[in-house]
């Protein structure tokens, strides 16, 4: 290779685009070539100095002057974000009437002050005012989700983007997106789904799931976040849930935690944590059920909810229901006649007592049943925990017994297998036993037996260790959650203070502006009599 070719390698090395083989070749050449070494040093020096050249060419005065010029251009109505008009050649009506322009400015300033007063007045949350955005931040988790605007023209994105009221977000089979719903939570739109933002305001956030699957995790006040589908509206009560609908509008919801109320024109269903609920386009939401409910029970529910199964289906439901279906029976109460309601009440009450505040009227309202459902949930959780503890205890005892027995068996086997070596028959005796051969395998058996022995204590220690790790994991997760909450609160406080500062500055500037205007208005001088305009005197002919 010639030195000119090595020069290319030197430059590639400075650019960080050289392979290991080329690098070692270059290094070898530089050891023996002074001119290339000098060349390399010079080029490296140039590149190094260029990297550290100063950035700041502008004085504050120049910066201000530049901004004034830019601001004048972008203030023209013909130059607005999103337009491609030529900013330098168009004039507009407002420029010709400065007084009109100042009046508009004054009105806008007053509007800003009034709005900020309303925002910061007691009873409203300034932090939520700051956080309420007309657009939501979306992140593609895989593939390239597409944002469709109101005119149905789409743009695919990867990374971060935003979408606003009226726009659609769609995912195909390969794409998935996360949506930050202002400051109240997050959604994940699974593949093959379509979502539309309907509204985003301080008191209401509303989307429409046209088809597909949406995971929601919302931590705002209840009845703030709504998901509309063709068959129902899911009203968030502070929860995490997954809702899936098909293109016809039929769907199913599963509540991971908290509670969701599903409403339609003629029905309302309260879906507690750990429950599924189906919805159908012309019927609305069904009755929630547990994943542990039997298939027969679920079929009976579908018949009652959607297929006009009536009294027969209800009879089946009551016949098949077990303790696992207690929550479903409670949710059924608003939809049945008085007699059936009392039957359900008595049955569930025997298993999990109803709250003292439960009355005939409250049995008709899904939301009012919430306390009973929560009690039921607590009872179930307590009973599960007790069962788990009991199971754990029995399992340990059983294992210990098995271990002891196994140990005894192994010891016994070990003892029985310590057989002395059988001598090889000599030539004489061989003739007698020529049909039998006894190979010496006692050593092999001993080794195998040794490998089967195991330490009971070691196994118990390993189980304890595993359980400790699980406990620690739970503890860590709790701490992390607390930490995250604290961080969020700190950020909200900071933002709140920044807004207050800004408003103070604005008010002061307004005061100064008013003062200046007052000072600039000069008193009108008195009229000179000579200058007074006299009416025309009739001409004398």
């Amino acid at each position, binding site marked *: 290779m010639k030195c000119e070719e090595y020069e290319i390698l030197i430059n590639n090395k400075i650019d960080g685009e050289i392979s290991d083989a080329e690098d070692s070749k270059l290094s070898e050449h530089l050891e023996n070539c002074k001119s290339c070494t000098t060349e390399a040093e010079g080029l490296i020096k140039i590149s190094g100095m260029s990297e550290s050249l100063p950035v700041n060419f502008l004085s504050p005065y120049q910066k201000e002057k530049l901004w004034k010029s830019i601001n004048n251009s*972008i203030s023209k109505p013909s130059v607005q*974000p999103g337009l491609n008009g030529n900013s330098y050649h168009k004039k507009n009506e407002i420029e010709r009437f400065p007084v009109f322009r100042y009046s508009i400015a004054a009105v806008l300033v007053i509007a800003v002050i009034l709005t900020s007063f309303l925002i910061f007045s007691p009873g409203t949350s300034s932090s939520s005012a700051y956080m309420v955005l007309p*657009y939501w931040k979306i992140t593609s988790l895989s593939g390239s989700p597409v944002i469709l605007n109101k005119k149905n023209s789409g743009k695919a994105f*990867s990374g971060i*983007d935003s979408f606003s009221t009226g726009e659609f977000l769609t995912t195909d089979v390969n794409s998935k997106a996360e949506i930050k719903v202002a400051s109240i939570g997050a959604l994940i739109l699974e593949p093959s789904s379509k979502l539309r933002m309907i509204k985003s305001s301080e008191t209401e956030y509303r989307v429409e799931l046209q088809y597909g699957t949406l995971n929601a995790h919302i931590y705002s006040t209840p009845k703030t976040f709504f998901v509309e589908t063709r068959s129902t509206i899911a009203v968030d009560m502070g929860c995490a849930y997954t809702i899936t609908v098909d293109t016809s509008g039929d769907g199913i919801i599963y509540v991971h935690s908290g509670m969701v109320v599903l409403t339609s024109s003629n029905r309302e269903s309260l879906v507690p944590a750990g429950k599924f609920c189906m919805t159908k386009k012309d019927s609305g939401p069904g009755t929630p059920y547990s994943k542990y409910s039997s298939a027969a029970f679920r079929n009976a529910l579908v018949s009652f909810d959607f297929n006009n199964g009536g009294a027969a289906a209800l009879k089946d439901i009551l016949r098949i229901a077990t303790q696992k279906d207690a929550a479903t029976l409670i949710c059924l109460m608003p939809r049945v006649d008085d007699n059936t309601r009392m039957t359900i009440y008595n049955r569930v009450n025997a298993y999990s007592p109803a709250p003292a505040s439960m009355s005939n009227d409250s049995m008709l309202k899904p939301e009012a049943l919430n306390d009973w459902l929560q009690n039921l949930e607590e009872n179930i959780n307590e009973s599960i925990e007790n069962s788990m503890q009991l199971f754990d205890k029995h399992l340990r005892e059983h294992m210990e017994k098995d271990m002891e027995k196994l140990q005894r068996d192994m010891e016994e086997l070990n003892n029985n297998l310590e057989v002395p070596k059988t001598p090889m028959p000599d030539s004489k005796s061989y003739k007698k036993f020529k049909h039998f051969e006894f190979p010496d395998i006692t050593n092999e058996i001993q080794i195998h037996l040794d490998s089967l022995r195991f330490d009971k204590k070691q196994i118990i220690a390993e189980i304890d260790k595993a359980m400790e790790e699980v406990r620690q994991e739970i503890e860590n997760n709790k701490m992390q959650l607390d930490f995250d909450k604290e961080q969020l609160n700190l950020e909200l406080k900071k933002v709140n203070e920044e807004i207050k500062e800004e408003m103070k500055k604005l008010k002061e500037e307004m005061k100064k502006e008013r003062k200046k205007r007052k000072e600039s208005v000069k008193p009108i001088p008195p009229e000179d009599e000579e200058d007074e305009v006299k009416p025309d005197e009739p001409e004398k002919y």
Partner: protein
Amino acid sequence: MPAEALKEVMSLTYTEFDLIRQAADGSHKAFKELFDNNVSRVYGLCSRISADRDIADELCQIVFIKAWQKLSDFRFGGKFYTWLHTIAVNEFLSMKRTQKRFIDNFAPFPSQKERSVTHETTGLKIDIESAIEKLPWQQRLAFILHDVEGFKHKEIAVMMEIEEGTSKSHVHRARKRMRDNLV
């Protein structure tokens, strides 16, 4: 690729994201903040690539006006200042095509007509700046984008609408020329 894009925008603070969206909705205040955060770097680029203060002023203004007009097109997959740099390069190339204020293949020594943008720093840095100004405009542009601003040849090729190999060639020749001038 989504993973790389996500990594890129991890450095995009929520504040900058918010400013861009507010500015796209018409907020001058938000745009002023974006201007304050980025003007030094953009002006630095305009100064060096144009090697003319008047043109640098005009170019910088055009960059921000165009940015204002096209804010709703900004894709959050990349950094905001990178996008401003792309606009600056595009506008500069546009200028080169439509206006004949530069000699294509050879930049003259700084004269009274071309007021230099070199400023008072150490003697060696003044030499570097004046050496950059002496480069032919294509080499100067590629060199500034690569060695000063830190863009990769792939990115420069897209900005300048040339091949990646051509970008490398410009930068390598620029270094060599500067080295010869500074010796």
